[in-house]
Each structure stands twice: as structure tokens, then as C-alpha cells.
């Protein structure tokens, strides 16, 4: 792997080493068995969503005796607010978070990776320090701050911080990537009289699409899955996100309508699952790089 770059690993191209055939079969058998264990709970949920109520429990089979999709309609329209509202709220928060994180973190990362200014190393160390800081320390004063601003019960506390580069992980990831872009490029541009802003906008960002996409995707998934933030800041059911909606759905349906609970749970996972399906490479490279470049 070249330094500080989200290169695609060559692992898929590597030809299998010579080894006895029975050994290969043994490894595959172990991996397939493990795969089944990994996937079974998810498939059980999915099949539960189209099973008859009585059939969900008491049978290990994943295939329903009859396919019944009515649970999806029951779940979607079942509460006092339709699930569509929750999906919309989550989507708005997640998309705004993506935009905020990508803009604010790339600005900071560009400064740390390329510009020289007084105190840079000091600020960079502080930024890295915030990576380790558990959010519990800032949680309560932040809540009080947003309460005083009158932002509690709106989505602002969930979105505004994302425009202020609060997630140091993304800055760190981008700094690593920016450092891998040849310096000659922006030095040449600087000779031609390019301002730092133009270099950032016209050279760094276009060359950094892979890392920006990685940050955007993780940002989306983490915001979509976030339960704690909405739990604290949102109390009106009309502003609920999917995660909160699902939780209140669990409480309100109690132990009556399992298949519609499973239906809504399955639906809530779809965006993350689709992103995973399409951007697997970026996600895996992103997480691997973050782990190796310290």
C-alpha cells in the first residue's frame, strides 16, 4: 500500500497458494459455517417480516409457509405518524451532516496538510487529542448551550456541529490523504499565482474524491444510525428520526405485532445496506487505512 493513499489492495488478485485440496475445503467449510452464523439473525428478521405472527417464533426455518407482505403496510402506517415522516427526518439530517462534514473537515484538513501558519503543530496536536476525548465530557454543557439557544427539540443540535468540523476522525483521514498528493502540483499552481483557496478548490478536492466519498459515506451511516443524539434532542414525534421512530414503535406495539416490527426494522437497515453494497471498497479501504496510518 503506497503511503497515505486509499489504494485498492491487491489481495483479490493474489493467486491461491499451493496447498492440499482437503485443506482448502476445510477452510471454506469453516468460513461458510461462520458466514451462516453471521447472516442468520439478519435473515431471520427479514423472513420474520413476511411470516405469519404465529410462525415467527417456534420455528428455525427461514422460509415462510406463505408470503405475507401486509406487515410492511401495517408498520408503515401503524403509528400516529407514518414511517415516511421518520425516513424524511433522518434523510434530511443525514444529508446535511454529510455536506457539513465534507466541507468543514476538508477545509481544516487542507490547512493542516498544506498551509504553514503559526502554531500549526500545536493545533494539530489538539485536534488529534479530541479524537480520544469521549463525547460524554462535552455532552451536558453542549445540551445546556443548545437549550439556551432554543435549539432543543429541533434538528439544529444534530446538524450544526457537523459544519464545525467536530468529527476529528474525518479531518485525520483527509490529512493523511492530502499528504499523499504530490506537493509539486500545488507548488506549481502557487507559482502561477493561485490562491490557497483556488488550490484547495481546483486541485485538492478534485484529486481527493475517494477520501471525500469515504468520509461522506461513513458520515451518512453514522448519522443514520445515531440513536443517542436524537434521543436527547428530539422529543416531538413529528421530528423523530428512523431510529427513534423504531424505538417508539417497539414500545407502542409491545409484544403484539412482531412481523410489522421486523418489517420496519428491516426497512431501517436498507439505506446502510445499499451503501454497503455499492461502496464496499471505499468503506473497507477507509477503515483499513485509518487503522494502519497512525
Amino acid at each position, binding site marked *: 500500500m503506497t503511503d497515505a493513499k486509499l489504494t485498492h489492495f491487491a*489481495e483479490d488478485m493474489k493467486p491461491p497458494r499451493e496447498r492440499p485440496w482437503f485443506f482448502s475445503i476445510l477452510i471454506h467449510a469453516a*468460513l461458510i459455517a461462520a458466514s451462516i452464523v453471521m447472516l442468520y*439473525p439478519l435473515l431471520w428478521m427479514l423472513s420474520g417480516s413476511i411470516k405469519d405472527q404465529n410462525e415467527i417464533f417456534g420455528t428455525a426455518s427461514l422460509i415462510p409457509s406463505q408470503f405475507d407482505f401486509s406487515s410492511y403496510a401495517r408498520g408503515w402506517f401503524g403509528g400516529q405518524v407514518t414511517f415516511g415522516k421518520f425516513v424524511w427526518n433522518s434523510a434530511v439530517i443525514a444529508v446535511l451532516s454529510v455536506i457539513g462534514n465534507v466541507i468543514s473537515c476538508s*477545509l481544516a484538513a487542507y490547512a493542516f496538510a498544506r498551509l504553514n501558519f503559526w502554531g500549526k503543530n500545536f493545533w494539530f496536536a489538539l485536534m488529534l487529542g*479530541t479524537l480520544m476525548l469521549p463525547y460524554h465530557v462535552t455532552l451536558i454543557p453542549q445540551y445546556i448551550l443548545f437549550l439556551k439557544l432554543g435549539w432543543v427539540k429541533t434538528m439544529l443540535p444534530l446538524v450544526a456541529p457537523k459544519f464545525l468540523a467536530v468529527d476529528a476522525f474525518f479531518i485525520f483521514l483527509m490529512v493523511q490523504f492530502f499528504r499523499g498528493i504530490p506537493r509539486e502540483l500545488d507548488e506549481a499552481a502557487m507559482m502561477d499565482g493561485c490562491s490557497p483557496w483556488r488550490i484547495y478548490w481546483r486541485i485538492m478536492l478534485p484529486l481527493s474524491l475517494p477520501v471525500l466519498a469515504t468520509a461522506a459515506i461513513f458520515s451518512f451511516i453514522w448519522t443514520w444510525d445515531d440513536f443517542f443524539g436524537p434521543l436527547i434532542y428530539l422529543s416531538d414525534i413529528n421530528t423523530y428520526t428512523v431510529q427513534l421512530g423504531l424505538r417508539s414503535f417497539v414500545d407502542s406495539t409491545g409484544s403484539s405485532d412482531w412481523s410489522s416490527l421486523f418489517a420496519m426494522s428491516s426497512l431501517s437497515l436498507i439505506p446502510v445496506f445499499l451503501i454497503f453494497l455499492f461502496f*464496499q471498497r471505499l*468503506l473497507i479501504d477507509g477503515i*483499513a487505512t485509518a487503522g494502519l496510518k497512525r
Partner: protein
Amino acid sequence: MRVETAYKAPSAFARNAPGYLFLLPWFIGFFGLTLGPAIASLYLSFTDYNLLQSPNLVSMENYVRIATADDKFLSSMKVTLFYVVCSVPLKLAFALLVALLLNRGIKGLPVYRAIFYLPSLLGSSVAIAVLWRQIFDADGIVNTLLWYAFGINGPSWISNPDYSLYTLIILAIWQFGSPMIIFLAGLRQIPTDLYEAASLDGASKARIFFKITLPLLTPVIFFNAVVQTIDAFKAFTPAYVISSGTGGPIDSTLFYTLYLYQEAFGYFRMGYASALAWILVIIIAIFTAFSFLSARYWVHYDD
């Protein structure tokens, strides 16, 4: 011909301004949402602030109560430590084992890797916690399988305080995918000529593993261990959803973060909860510092 434009050294302002302009959003975030609140939280931890009345300084009272007269602090800390100590090593062991299996130039690697990574990606969502609650329900799938396979009548895992925490530990282990990917990338970085040299020398597989693979992988093991430990200390959603926000049955799943949440947003004891938050920070810091100190003895950096 002389070049007319004489070089003019840029002023200090011109040299520093762009950097600070680019960092402006981060500065606002850092001072307004991280450093400022952290200082405020430290101050609040010495007060009795409850959101309604202005805070009164109570000196060390919160900390003294936590240390001497708070059963829930003790029990939630025990639950959390048990969760960390059980889930992290097992999770890392699975991650390493599967990464080693996958690193053998196996066919279908992308498919396996995807399957093992998927649960970690979905892991923090409410749907997975809901699913887990149903899986370990009295008539859930785990007990159904136990009945078919061994004729055992399984307990009601979630509502039995003896077992409820284990279901959360199993959930954490199920999500071994992201450390696994980091292990895989780490294994890729071990130079193959080391292996070739060792096998030419006739070293056994076990010897190669313990003398080459494992030592060269220690930086990655260390990174995964630190990150996973911090994450485990911060776990919240599964315990909240599975216990319906109570941490029950009888506080068996009352994670530290859940207790902190109850104090802050259930009873609005903001001062007390701030003190709890700082204790958590100190404990995480001690764990991290200890890891870094111990790293000297077992982590090998090639330099």
C-alpha cells in the same frame, strides 16, 4: 534584462491568515463545542446544577458521593468493566482468527469479507438491538435452536439478570468485522520475503506464526485493542433498547453510559452527571495510558 518585481517578503499576517481562515469552522467547533464545554463540564461537576436553578458550588460533594454512597455507580461500573473485559478480547480473537483464515489467498475473499463486515456496519442501529432482544427472547430463535439441537429448555435470556449481559457481549462479538478488516490490511503489510526466508530455513508453520506474523502484527493488535476498548466503554444503544431504557433486569445491563444518561436526562442532575462523565474520562484515560505503557513490552515497531 532585470526582473522588475523585487521579491517582497509577505507580512506575518499574509503568511498566517490563510491557514487560520481555513481552520475557522474547526476553531469555532473546537472552542465552542469541545474545549469550552469540557471546561464547563469540569466546573459543573463541582456544582448541584439541575437546569432549573443556577448552579451552586458544592466542592467535592458529587465525587465523594460517587466514591462512597452510590450503589448504582458501583454496579454500573462493574457491568461496564465486565462487558469490556469479556467482549474486547473475544472480539479481537475472532477478528484475528478470521483475518488469518481469509489471508491465505482464499477464493471468494471479497464475499467472505463482506459477510463478516456487514454486522459491524449495521451494528449500532436500533433495528439490530431490537432483533437481538427477539433472538434471545424466551421463545426466540436461540431457545428454539437449543430445543431442536439438544432438547434444552433455554432460559428467558433478556429478562434473566444472570444472562442478560451475556447477550450484549455476544452482540459485541458478532460485530468483529471492522477490527478484522484492519487485521487483514495489517497482514498484507508483512513483507512476503520474510515468510519465504523462513520457509527456506525450514521453519514450521507455528514457528512462522509466532516469530514473524504475530510480532509484526502487534502494532495493529495494539491499535485495535485500544479503539475497541474505548468503544466498549462508550456502548449505549444496545443496552438502552434491550432493557427499554432501564438497564434492567435488576441493573444487570445498566451500562455506565446508560446510568449517566439517566442521571442527566432522566433526573436532570446535570452537576452529578458531569462528575460521572469526568470519572469515565479518567477511567478511559487510565486504561489508555496503561495500554501505551504496556505497549513498550509487547508491541514491536520496525525502525
